[in-house]
């Protein structure tokens, strides 16, 4: 469906001057893809020989009259801009992209792999205390929510990941998170220490645990 009806092979640049309709298409594409307004001169340089960008621009201006996008003259150049009466549609919030702190990423990873998991368990795995702010942030981002209470002394709350989390990370379910062995195989883990033999048993045990953790139930964390 995406292919324009008037398609012409690129080789035709050697042909006699393109038709005015074709010239319009060309100017349209150039202005669309350009990251700044283009002057007549620049357009002429980019078009095949014999083209008249001024005439093409006139045609384009008429084509776009009354549309959602307008061809505007800006200084010496030309550019497409959203029609001014539709600017209310462009009120996208400016989104400031910031990276999550390491503590937050680690905490999130632990929750994703071990959910439902208590705060104490997170701290045990990370080896450091989890600050209140880190969990609050993840909850506020709606990537983590509070799950059932664990039926153990103190009835601690558990944490689980949300649909929004799965959505953001393109996962069908938290069970689709790859295990350590897969991470290593995909080259996502640093290579192992120089004496693999000495560490092999440890590593194996580790991966086993990990794979087990990906299974629905891992007894240590069982909830009900």
């Amino acid at each position, binding site marked *: 469906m995406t292919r324009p009806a008037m398609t012409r092979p690129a080789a035709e640049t050697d042909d006699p001057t393109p038709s005015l309709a074709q010239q319009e298409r060309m100017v349209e*594409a150039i202005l*669309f*893809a*350009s*990251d*700044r307004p283009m002057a007549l001169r620049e357009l002429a340089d980019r078009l095949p020989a014999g083209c008249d960008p001024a005439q093409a621009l006139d045609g384009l201006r008429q084509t776009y009259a009354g549309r959602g996008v307008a061809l505007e003259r800006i200084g010496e150049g030309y*550019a497409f*801009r*959203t029609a001014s009466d539709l*600017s209310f549609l*462009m*009120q*996208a*919030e*400016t*989104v*400031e*992209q*910031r*990276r*999550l702190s*390491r503590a*937050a*990423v*680690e905490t*999130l*990873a*632990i929750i*994703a*792999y071990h959910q439902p998991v208590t705060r104490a368990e997170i701290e045990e*795995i*990370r*080896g450091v205390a989890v600050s209140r702010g880190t969990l609050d*942030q993840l909850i506020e*981002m709606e990537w983590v929510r509070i799950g059932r209470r664990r039926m153990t002394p103190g009835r601690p709350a558990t944490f689980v990941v949300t649909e929004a989390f799965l959505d953001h*990370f*393109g*996962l069908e379910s938290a069970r689709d*998170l*790859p295990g*350590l062995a897969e*991470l*290593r195989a995909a080259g*996502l*883990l*640093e290579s*192992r*220490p120089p004496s693999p033999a*000495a*560490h092999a048993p*440890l*590593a194996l045990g*580790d991966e086993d645990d*990990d794979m087990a953790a990906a299974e629905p139930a891992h007894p240590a964390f069982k909830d009900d």
Partner: protein
Amino acid sequence: MTRSPTDSPHPCRTPPDGDIARRRADEALIVELEGYEGPLDLLLTLARTQKVDLMRISVLQLAEQYLSFVEQVRALRIELAADYLVMAAWLAFLKSRLLLPPDPESDEPSAEDMAAHLAFQLERLAAMRQAAGQLMARDRLGIGRFARGRPETVARRRRTEWQAGLIDLMRAYARLKTRDEFRPYAFDRHDVFTMEQALDRLRRLIGFAGDWTDLADVLPDGWVEQGARRRSATAATFAASLELARQGRIEIRQADAFAPIRFRSKPDLTDPP
């Protein structure tokens, strides 16, 4: 990787044209060996020399080509990856099966089925390569098609969107889970009696050892049975006794080779520096 010996032809002899063509083909294979991405890739290249539809290749001929190729390479003492040798072994097996009459008793797959599967694998690989080529030749974004060069958004509000990719997440988890693997090497001391322990123990015993005492009699409880623990305790206690003797706090004697080693405290000295 390496060149074939046929690379430098005998200067005095000009081989007939057919020979040259064949030799060039051979050389191409040899020289490019490093470029092969595994046995299947090599087989596919060999299959192409048969110049027929992949579904109609002669697998027997292909097996022979492969085996002689591998022979040739090995004659040059090129180290062949195990994959290539495994494939060679399998092809040799297939070849023998193809040449022998089928064994009606056997419930193994027939040689024809095996050959057909190999041909299928080659065809499938070739098809994926062709597909990859078609894919890369499409009008790709940023090459043949372009997005809006200057996307517009009007700033009204600020909102922070926290960025983290799946890779970050997985790496963080991997970092945590593998942390223990990278701890410094620590010797398991469960069955080791250290010299420090032995020194402590001997120092306390000296006071009571006015008479010659057998070192073997002062090993700590739990370390006197035979085995690694006893050996460790004996060695440590012996070393500790040497240290105390050096300090002049005890005397040691041994009547004969392999005789018991005895010690006693030196009565006239109290606490040397």
